[in-house]
C-alpha cells in the first residue's frame, strides 16, 4: 500500500516535468511552423549558449528557493563581479582566464556570505537582506567603475575565449553549464548536505530538531548562489565583451521566473533540478524565438508574461488533479 502510494506520488511528480517538456515541444512546434529556421543546428546552438548563463544561475536560485528564501541581489552581483574582473584583465592583460573566473567566484562568494549571515544568523528576511545588498552592490559597481565601461578592445583574447571558445565544437558556456548541473545533481541527490537543504526547506522545525545545522545550511545556499552569480558575472562580461555598470539590471526576476516555471515552489522544500533545467530552457527559448517569429516588439513582454502565468497555472491544475486522484484511490 505504502509503496504503491509512493510510486503514484513519484508518478505525479515526474508528470509535472513531463508536462513542462510537452509544453516546450508544443511551443517549439508552433514556432517551427512560423519560422523553419528555428530548429536548425545553428539556432539550437545559439539558443543553448543564450540559455547557459541563465541556467547556471537557476541552480543557485533553486537551492535558495528550496530553503524558502529568495535572492534579489544576483543581478547586481553579476555586474560587480563582471566589472571588477574586466577591470583587472584590462589593467593586467596577462591574467590567465582561470584566475579571472576564480576572482569572480570569490567576489560573488563574499556577497553571498554577507547575505547568508544576515539571513541565517541575524534572522533578516531574505527578501530584505538581498534587496538591501542589491542596492549596495549596484552602487559599489558604479563607484568602482567611475562611470566608465570596459570595452572589447581592452579585453585580452584569452579572457574573451572563456565564453566564445569551443571544445569539440561545443561552446565553453554550454560545457560549464552542464558541468555545474552534474555537480549540482550529485550534490542535491547524493550528499548529506544536499538532502539537508530539502529537509530545511520542507520543515525547518523538524530539521532543526533532528539535528540538522539549519543556520549553516541556509548560509551555505546563499554562498553557493553568490558564487554562481559571481561566476556568471565573468561569463557575462566575456560573452558580451563589455562590462558596464547597469549590467544584468533586473535579471534576478528572469532567474526567479525560470525557476518557478520549473515547478519549484517559493514555499520551500520541493523542486527538482530537471524541472529547473526545463524552466531555464523554456525561458531561453522564449527570448530566442519571439524575435524569430516576427512578433511585434511591443507584444513580446505581454506574451512572455502570459506564457509564464499559463505554465504556472497548468502546473497547479495538474497537481491538484493528481492529488485528487491519489485521494480517491486511497479511499478505495
Amino acid at each position, binding site marked *: 500500500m505504502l509503496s504503491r502510494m509512493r510510486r503514484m506520488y513519484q508518478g505525479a511528480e515526474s508528470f509535472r516535468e513531463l508536462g513542462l517538456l510537452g509544453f516546450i515541444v508544443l511551443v517549439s512546434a508552433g514556432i517551427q511552423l512560423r519560422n523553419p529556421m528555428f530548429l536548425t543546428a545553428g539556432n539550437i546552438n545559439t539558443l543553448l549558449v543564450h540559455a547557459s548563463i541563465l541556467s547556471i544561475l537557476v541552480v543557485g536560485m533553486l537551492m535558495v528557493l528550496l530553503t524558502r528564501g529568495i535572492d534579489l541581489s544576483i543581478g547586481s552581483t553579476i555586474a560587480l563581479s563582471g566589472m571588477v574582473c574586466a577591470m583587472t584583465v584590462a589593467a593586467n592583460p596577462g591574467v590567465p582566464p582561470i584566475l579571472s573566473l576564480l576572482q569572480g567566484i570569490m567576489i560573488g562568494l563574499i556577497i553571498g556570505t554577507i547575505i547568508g549571515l544576515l539571513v541565517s544568523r*541575524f534572522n533578516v*528576511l531574505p*527578501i530584505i*537582506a538581498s534587496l*538591501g545588498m542589491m542596492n549596495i552592490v549596484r552602487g559599489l559597481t558604479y563607484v568602482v567603475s567611475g562611470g566608465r565601461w570596459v570595452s572589447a578592445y581592452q579585453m585580452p583574447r584569452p579572457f574573451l575565449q572563456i565564453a566564445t571558445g569551443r571544445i569539440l565544437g561545443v561552446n565553453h558556456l554550454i560545457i560549464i553549464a552542464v558541468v555545474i548541473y552534474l555537480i549540482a545533481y550529485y550534490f542535491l541527490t547524493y550528499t548529506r548536505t544536499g538532502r539537508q537543504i530539502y529537509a530545511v526547506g520542507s520543515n525547518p*522545525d523538524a530539521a532543526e530538531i533532528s539535528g540538522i545545522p539549519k543556520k549553516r545550511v541556509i548560509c551555505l545556499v546563499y554562498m553557493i548562489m553568490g558564487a554562481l552569480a559571481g561566476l556568471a558575472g565573468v561569463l557575462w562580461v566575456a560573452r558580451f565583451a563589455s562590462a558596464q555598470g547597469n549590467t544584468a539590471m533586473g535579471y534576478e526576476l528572469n532567474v526567479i*521566473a525560470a525557476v518557478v516555471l520549473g515547478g519549484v515552489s517559493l*514555499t520551500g522544500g520541493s523542486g527538482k533540478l530537471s524541472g529547473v533545467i526545463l524552466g531555464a530552457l523554456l525561458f531561453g527559448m522564449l527570448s530566442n524565438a519571439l524575435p524569430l517569429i516576427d512578433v511585434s516588439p511591443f507584444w513580446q513582454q505581454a506574451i512572455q508574461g*502570459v506564457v509564464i502565468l499559463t505554465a504556472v497555472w497548468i502546473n497547479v491544475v495538474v497537481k491538484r488533479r493528481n492529488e485528487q486522484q491519489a485521494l480517491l484511490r486511497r479511499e478505495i
Partner: protein
Amino acid sequence: MPEHMIQLDKPRDWKSFFLQWEWLLVLIFILIHVMNSFLSPYYLNVNTFIRTPQTFLDKAFIVFPMTFIIILGSIDVSVGSTVALSSVIMAVSYNAGMPMGLAMVLCLAVSSLCGLFNGFLLARYHELSSAIVTISTMTIYRGFAYVILEDQAAGGFPGWFESFGWGSVGPVPVMSIAFIVCAGIFGMLLHRTTFGRCLYGMGHNHKACLYSGINIKKIKMIVSMLTGLMAGVTAIFLTSRMGSTRPNVATGYELEVIAMVVLGGVSTAGGKGKMIGPILAVFIVGYLSYGLGLINVSAQVLLIIIGGLLIASVLISNIRFSRKEQKKSSPALFGVEADEKT
C-alpha cells in the same frame, strides 16, 4: 473594541511604549532633518516642509495597501506595472475623446481590475505564491501598456489636471491633503475595524483564521483590489506631475514601496506592524534623498546609503524581537500561504 485579540508588541508600560520601533523611526526622522539643515543652506525653509513632500508622495499612496499585503505575509510586485497600465489607458482614452473626469475614473477602474485579477488568482489557487503570481502579472500589465501605446507618449491633458500634482489648496499641496486623507482612512481600516483585525489574524495564523470562519478569500480579494485602486491613485498623481505618460513609467516603484513598508517595521513574516511606521518611513526615505540631493550626492552613493539603512534598520528590529521570534517557527518568506488548505 477587540484590542485584546492579537497584538504582539502591545505597550505594557511607558518603558516598552517608548522602546517601540516607531519611536526609533521618529528619532531617525528628526536626525535627518537636523543633518540636512546642517548640510545645506537651502534646506531649512518653509518650502521644504510644505512643497517638498509632493516630490516623493506619488508612490507613497501604494504604501498603505502594501502594508496590508505584507501584514498578510504576502507580497505584490506588480504595482509599478499597474500604475503604468492604468496611466496609459487614462491618457489614451482621454486622447480618444473621453472627458478627463471619466478617463480618471477609468484609470481607477482599470487599476482596481488589475488588483482584483491578482487577488482572484491568489484566492482561487492558494498554493501559488504571491511572489510568482505578481511577477507574472507584472510582466503582463507592463506588456499591455506597451501593446497599447507602443513607442508613443500620450499627454496633452487639460490644464486643471495638472493641479493634482502641482496645485495646492492655500499653501498645502493637493497631494499632501490626499495623502493625509488616505493615511487616515487606511489607518482607521487597519487599527479600528474588524477587517483590520482579520488582517493581523491572517498574517499571524492563517489556519486559525480559516477555522474560525473568517472569509479568507474575500479578504485577500479586497486587499488586492485596494492595492490596485491605490496604484491607480498613484497613476493619476504621477501622470499629472509629468503631463504625459509612457509605457515605461513607474519602473521599479514596487521595490521602493516594499522597502518603505519594511523600513516602517512591518514584518514580512506577517502579522506585525502598524500603519504609522510605513508613513514615517515614507518621509524618512523621502527627506533623506531630498537632503542628500540638495548637496548633490551622486545617485550611486544614495543607492548604497539607502540599501545600508534598510538592512541596518531591519537588523535592529530583529535583534530586539529575536527572543520572541525564536519561539515562532522560522519565518518563511511567503510561507504563510503554504500551510493553507481551503
